[in-house]
């Protein structure tokens, strides 16, 4: 489903972010990518989302070379991927409901679909009671749950979670990981980047370890080895 082929990324200032990265991800897989800050995890995710180009190599998603996707076709690609970030990245002037509804609006869903799906998804992440709150009125864990609801509401083929638990306490971290696991159990491919040892070990799924822009380990069943 996803294929990184000998990908290198060198920023204009000469920083090497990725160097000869090659791996693939199968449909329905749960992949954790671990590594220190600056190991290149976030750069990998950005390339997958079409945010910037790689210096050499190619990144493909369902046999489509992302580097070759035209700017005007990019939104269609991104609608097939749900993204969750460490800093949540919700729209501050929209309520939890509207943030989730926004993702459906841009996907061209009807008002009826939005009215029925959004409350359902928010209930799934246990936020029914705070549907009409603005992001500033929610806690970190709640914000991340809104972000997850937004990411899954359009039934994407892939969920990218870039350090989703980085800003959360252990209880919220546990809950978020459980939600991601549930999403994966329902068949959606999930790529999670983290440097939380507990999270990786609790999952017991495939782990790729990165260091200085290279893949140093690809372990099929969950060990955090750094």
């Amino acid at each position, binding site marked *: 489903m996803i294929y990184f082929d000998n990908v290198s990324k060198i920023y204009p200032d000469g920083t090497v972010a990725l160097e000869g990265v090659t791996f693939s991800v199968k449909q329905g897989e749960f992949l954790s990518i671990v590594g220190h800050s600056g190991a290149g995890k976030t750069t990998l995710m950005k390339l997958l989302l079409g945010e910037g180009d790689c210096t050499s190599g190619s990144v493909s998603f369902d046999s489509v070379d992302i580097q070759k996707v035209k700017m005007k076709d990019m*939104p269609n690609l991104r609608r097939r991927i749900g993204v969750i970030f460490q800093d949540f990245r919700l729209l501050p002037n929209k309520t939890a409901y509207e943030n989730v509804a926004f993702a459906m609006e841009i996907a061209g869903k009807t008002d009826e679909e939005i009215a029925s799906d959004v409350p359902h998804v928010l209930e799934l992440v246990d936020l029914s009671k705070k549907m009409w709150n603005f992001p500033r009125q929610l806690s970190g864990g709640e914000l991340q749950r809104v972000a997850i609801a937004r990411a899954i509401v359009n039934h994407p083929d892939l969920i990218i979670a870039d350090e989703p638990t980085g800003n959360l306490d252990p209880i919220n971290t546990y809950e978020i990981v459980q939600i991601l696991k549930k999403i994966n159990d329902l068949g959606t491919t999930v790529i999670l980047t983290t440097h939380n040892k507990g999270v990786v070990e609790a999952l017991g799924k495939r782990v790729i370890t990165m260091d200085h822009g290279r893949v140093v380990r690809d372990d099929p069943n969950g060990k955090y080895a750094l």
Partner: protein
Amino acid sequence: MLWITIKRIIKAGFVNFWRNGSVSLSAVFVMVIALFMIGSTLLLTAFLGTALKDLTDKIDINIYVSATAPESSILDLQAKIEALPEVKAVTYISREQALETFRVRHENDHRIIQALDEVGSNPLTAVLTVKAKEPAQYEGIAKFLENKSSLAPDSLSIVSKVNYNDNKVAIERLSRIIDGVKKLGGIVTVVLVGISILITFNTIRLAIFIARDEISVMRLVGGSNEYIRGPFVVEGMIYGLVSGMLTIILFYPITYWLKTTTQGFYGGIDLLHYFVANFVQIFFIIILSGIVLGAVSSYLAVRKYLAMR
């Protein structure tokens, strides 16, 4: 589908305008100043134009015809002067009309009327009032009238006086002022309108700079360029609409306040009257410039963030 999208974009524009209260308020305030500048330059140039036209209309040359001249020779002279290309119109005021106008003008002044009655016969002469197409052409016309060879000797003999030389200095000065004001007015309008556009554009650019993270989030979750840009353009249009309305409201007390000053200066027309008489036109110019300025500025400002890969 298109209709749903448009509906959502418009709704999002209004909601953003309302929820970004403080940003909207500052943008509106700055735009009021910009639109006020545009409005007042347009209003003042238009008003000056009207006032100058009034003044220009007041300039003329009077040819006093000797009392003994037969009417046919006077009409003959009128036709000859009318034939000149520089002349716009020649009005003939007969001795009787002149007397009538004189009596009406001085009807409250008994001594003059009494004196007039004592004279018995009509002491006034017939007058030909000449209006040129341009103020600068009066001199040429006056020269022509002084040049005896250009008119038949008998026609000329009936002219007792041409008053151009009495008004010469005033007419020349006035035509210079009119020319100067027109040129300066044009330059000032262009400069001020340019400044206003820049101010508005930069204000909206700042407002959108504040929202740049939101734009990147919208792109990441798969928003198309049109869908992301739409609400910002609508918001810009609302800025323009609201500031346009406020500017119009602001104009009323200010023109009212300037009413007496302008009346004293120009005699007759005043700024308030001009504003009220041309209200519909001014209203549309200000509101439309606001909306267009807001929409175009937003469109351009968002473009920068959408162009990035």
